[in-house]
């Protein structure tokens, strides 16, 4: 992806932007679709050529939408609409959808109509009186940036257009932001773990931005006392907006997300302290750590054999940064490459703080793409990679015995969502290592044929 617009720390050489990349991240249009499809009881209309609908389909799957409940539509723009404008076809398609039993129709626009100047906001305003549901235009062309930029764009629109102001604050409550900006393929389980932890501490969740979130929740999200960002890659702008406009305080800011014993303990403690639930947080930590250790005692995680094994972590910042400590402290490996999909200042600061604190200095690649990852792996030659299916193939020819697929998994093998956050999350990550360990040790050939 393109380098993001943060300044480099003083004295560091600014890398020359590359012209040819092999990106990990999708475009802003996809991020906007992911966010819009997290609103329950809504539908999505892509004002785009038909190919962009596949980015919507990807978002649909990511938000675990049900095709019996959620309809996605597309204006399927062709040359005519690019030459003469596509506002008429957009209006026709909205009218076609007018009988859908929904509370909102999100209209997201792609590169083509944005370049030719289709005014989706005006079309939605004109058509609003004709339909019973809310029309929410989100101009989100792919060229506006990565999927994370798209999430920020869509959250900005949602907050500005749908949230009621002047609502009473619900004391001790929280608004969850950007749970879907997380490369765990079943991130819904991370969100569920967070909600369960908050519930145990007696912290009500006013709204989740966004996952299966009713419009009414979104409308009331300014009544939250605090916000909790569940991603290191996107959503900070939404948290800042809520802070500026409604005085909503962001909690757990600057703390790595709760993956591994130390991170989870730190994150829960911060929450406990802010909400006066220190004792509950302490018991959760004690119970959780006891459960993990007892389970490991019974199940024997093979991860313990990987002591001081050189490792690479290739992921988004949301999973990748917390993994650094988990891999180093709990699994006793030595991270020698950390390649993150994103490169914004907050990501750099957080990772660099973590590396300093842990006392390691791996090779770090921010805003990595497939080429940089492959070159990094070639240079570092790790024995274990925590990454995606792409790295499994990118390390071909290198002596890498274990590729633990934890993000962007191409073969969807999980029927039950698995969290990485919290204590069961530790076991889930151990299970990923265990399965990879088993596969690496499985005999590929038999030494002789049996007689029967």
């Amino acid at each position, binding site marked *: *992806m*393109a380098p993001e617009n943060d300044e480099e720390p003083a004295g560091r050489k600014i890398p020359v932007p*590359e*012209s*040819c*990349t*092999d*990106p990990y991240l*999708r*475009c*802003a*249009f*996809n991020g906007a679709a992911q966010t819009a499809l997290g609103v329950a009881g809504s539908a999505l*209309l892509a004002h*785009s*050529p*038909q*190919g*962009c*609908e*596949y*980015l919507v389909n*990807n978002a649909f799957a990511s938000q675990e939408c049900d*095709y*019996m409940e959620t*309809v*996605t*539509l*597309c*204006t*399927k*723009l*062709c*040359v005519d*609409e*690019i030459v003469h404008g596509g506002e008429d076809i957009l209006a026709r*398609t909205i009218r*076609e*959808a007018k009988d*859908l039993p929904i509370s909102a129709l999100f209209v997201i626009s792609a*590169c*083509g109509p944005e*370049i*030719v100047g289709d005014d989706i906001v005006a079309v939605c305003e004109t058509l609003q009186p004709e339909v019973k549901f809310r029309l929410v235009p989100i101009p989100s*062309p*792919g*060229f*506006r*940036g*990565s999927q994370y930029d798209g999430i920020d764009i869509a959250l900005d629109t949602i907050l500005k257009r749908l949230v009621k102001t002047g609502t009473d604050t619900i004391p001790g409550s929280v608004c969850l932001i950007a749970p879907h900006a997380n490369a765990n393929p079943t991130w819904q389980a991370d969100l569920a773990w967070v909600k369960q932890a908050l519930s145990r501490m007696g912290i009500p969740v006013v709204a989740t931005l966004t996952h299966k979130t009713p419009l009414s929740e979104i409308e009331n999200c300014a009544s939250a006392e605090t916000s909790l960002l569940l991603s290191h890659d996107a959503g900070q702008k939404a948290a800042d907006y809520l802070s500026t406009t409604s005085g909503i305080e962001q909690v757990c800011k600057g703390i790595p997300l709760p993956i591994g014993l130390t991170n989870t303990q730190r994150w829960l403690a911060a929450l406990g302290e802010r909400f006066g639930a220190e004792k509950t947080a302490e018991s959760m930590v004690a119970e959780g750590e006891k459960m993990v250790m007892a389970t490991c005692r019974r199940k024997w995680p093979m991860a313990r054999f990987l002591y001081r094994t050189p490792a690479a972590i290739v992921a988004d910042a949301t999973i990748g940064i917390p993994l650094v400590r988990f891999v180093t402290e709990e699994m006793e490996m030595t991270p020698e490459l950390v390649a993150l999909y994103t490169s914004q200042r907050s990501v750099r600061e957080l990772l660099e703080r973590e590396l300093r604190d842990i006392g390691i200095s791996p090779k770090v690649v921010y805003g990595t793409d*497939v*080429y940089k990852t492959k070159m990094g792996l070639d240079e570092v030659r790790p024995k274990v990679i925590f990454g995606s*299916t*792409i790295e*499994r*193939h*990118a390390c*071909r020819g290198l002596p890498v015995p274990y590729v633990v697929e934890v993000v962007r998994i*191409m*073969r969807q093998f999980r029927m039950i969502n698995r969290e990485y956050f919290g204590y069961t999350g530790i076991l889930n990550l151990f299970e990923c290592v265990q399965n990879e360990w088993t596969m690496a040790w499985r005999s590929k050939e038999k030494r002789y044929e049996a007689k029967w």
Partner: protein
Amino acid sequence: MENDSLVFHGDLQQLLEKVETGEMIPKLQASHAPMCKFFTAYYVISGIRHVVPLVHGPTGCPLYMSDFVRTRECCEIRGVPLEPTACTTLDESHIIYGGEGKLLEAVKEAYAKYHPDLIVILSCCCSGIIGDDVESIAREAEKQVGCRVLALRSEGFGGDFRSGYEDAFKLIMELMDPPKTMMKGTINILGARWGPSPTEFNWDLDEIERLLSAIGIKINAIIAGGCTVDQIRHAREVELNASWCYDWGQKLGDLMQEKFGIPYSKTGQPYGPEATKEWLLGVATPLGMEEEALAVIEREMKEVEPDLAYLRQALSGKTAIIEISEFPGPIRALSLARMAEEFGARPVVINVHPYTIKERMPSIKYILGTGLNPEIILTRGLFRLGSFRSSKETEDELEAIVRMYDNVIFFGNSGRFPPCPVVNLSLMNPAFQPQYGYKGIKNIAALVRQALENRNLPRSRLFRGMLYGTGKR
């Protein structure tokens, strides 16, 4: 079945006429979006080994390709190494000031990074609208790198999925050198795509290759299913072009015939004994290898005689309701209709969308020209807003259609629950692949046997509920 559920009931010829005259509008509803031109162009180009498809656009365009085509399909399933999906990552400033400079740099960078045999610039909506001259950049860049650089205008709005395939195949012709020799008894297979390994259905192409090899026919290149640039360069030295699927090979076959005078064997998909014989003789006869082909056909027919006998006995007098509307597509449905008819069944093809008729017009006309003109039914559910995956309305309509006929067998996939035996032709189950050729006859016979012998076993309440819900039916 209530009459108002039927939108069309006639034969293929009549449906074609309705589409051609505009009486039936060949337009998919807003909830149904097939691939765009860029996608399909990419599929073809990525089928050349050691190519860099360089996407001149933002990151959204190549991502489906790099995830689904490159990583999942090619690397995970087809044994293809990780190949690049390069992108110029256009942003707002390029939209305003133009992206040609960045593109030129990107080509040079791609060459330095990946050492490819070929770079193909694929333009997207953005670069197309702002008017970046990708062809000129390709020409300029070619002077500065050590491989061919071609450009393909593949803006998503620039045409439907078919145009991407066709334009990409056309572009590949630019790589073909004038012939220096004639490769006797050698053909190209045209129309393959989807990653640098043979087509999306390896098994079918494997069966074709097995039969050709038995006859003694050699293959120069499978274009573009894993062929090399060198093989493409020599593509004009073959005696004949053939297609693994008439629908996809036809355009390139016709163009190579027209431009280079290379004959093109026009045959349909080799489903069943007659179509397989036609396919093999269509290739062997022009090469003067008819006798060898007949010997192979005779030997193979002997091998599958029990299966042929079973299919004749099982299908004779039955109504074969055929529904393959999405994957792998309507041309296979029509090929199956021919096969069913060959075994004495009456084929009724359901829910071939008028859009499909328009998009596959040359193939539909070819099929009609072979004398096949099956009964066609289109239902109201086919035109409703809803999911591409599954629609309860079309399921209900299918069940009602089945009740209209006696002695019915359904050819489709296991996602349907009509009150009759269901032959599961899903290509997602490699246990019964290929469907082409003589191995295909064995597999289809086995599938029919499974359907008929187990017709009284209960169907899955779970899967039915998953697909169509558990509401009152």
